[in-house]
């Protein structure tokens, strides 16, 4: 495989992984906003071990509401740090892209192994057939 072909495949894989990650993350946040809490180990400052995803629902105009999610980290005495939503989402997005790329790599390796022709089986040498007898 040429370098150009390999680069093209890599770029395609990254683009597909990112598009898939955007779709999956959008659905995940709508269905399970608590997913942001998975990033607590990375975004919560030391001494603020308990993550909370807080929901604010506002009515902009009659019949229309918006909901926003913000992640906070809290200590034992109720002191909180606002870590927002951007950093948790970016971390989850990045992790998802990496997992997808790893899956693509595994799938590509597996399919290449399957499609590669198997080497011919070594057959025992057969005696050279002589001219068939002519029966008259």
């Amino acid at each position, binding site marked *: 495989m040429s370098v150009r072909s390999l680069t093209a495949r890599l770029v395609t894989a990254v683009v597909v992984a990112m598009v898939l990650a955007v779709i999956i993350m959008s659905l995940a946040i*709508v*269905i*399970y*906003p*608590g*997913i*942001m*809490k998975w990033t607590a180990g990375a975004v919560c*400052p030391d*001494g603020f071990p308990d993550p*909370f*995803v*807080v*929901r*604010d*629902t506002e009515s902009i105009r009659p019949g229309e509401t918006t*909901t926003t*999610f913000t992640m*906070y980290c*809290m*200590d*034992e*005495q*109720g*002191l*909180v*740090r*606002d870590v927002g939503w951007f950093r948790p989402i970016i971390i989850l997005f990045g992790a998802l892209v990496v997992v997808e790329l790893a899956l693509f790599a595994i799938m590509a390796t597996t399919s290449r192994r399957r499609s590669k022709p198997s080497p011919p089986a070594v057959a025992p040498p057969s005696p050279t057939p002589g001219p068939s007898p002519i029966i008259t």
Partner: protein
Amino acid sequence: MRSVWSVVALAVVVAGGCVGSIDRDEFRAEIDARGGGTSTALVVGAVDAMSTELGVTDFQVAKVVVNSQSVLFDVRDPQQPDNVDTYVYTQGRLGDPTPVRRSSSDDPLEESVFGIGAVPFDELDRILAEAYEATGVGPGATASVVVQKFGVFGDDFMFFVNVSGERSDGSARFDSTGTLISEDDQ
């Protein structure tokens, strides 16, 4: 099969935006249940940030107010000792200074200020626990603390702790060493 997907879709719509999150009121209740965030950790962080901002470890203050989630300092400017500025520390960050207006009828600044290093903020958790116990307000109560020189009570600074509960309020005074002087139920 179609009915199964309908149920799944309905569950997603109903549960969507709720799973793993809490609303703002529940969050405030959780903060209050843990003590409101008024703590030694909050003040120590605030004093460290203030020291870094001013470039000195023992700066002078005219007043320190510790609230739930924030600390307010009225600080004497080390570079221009006639000036006092208000700084607010919240969310781990120190805001920009705001000038404090003083009038000729105020006590002389020299008599109002005290060194931050003399305030036993590392005792604040114990002071708060004693204030809760002395006032009988809580659990679930939140407190705010004012550290200042109150002329009527003497020349030294003291801690004035206001405790606020769901059904009652109270206050307690502690001297400059953090010893309880008096309490008042309201």
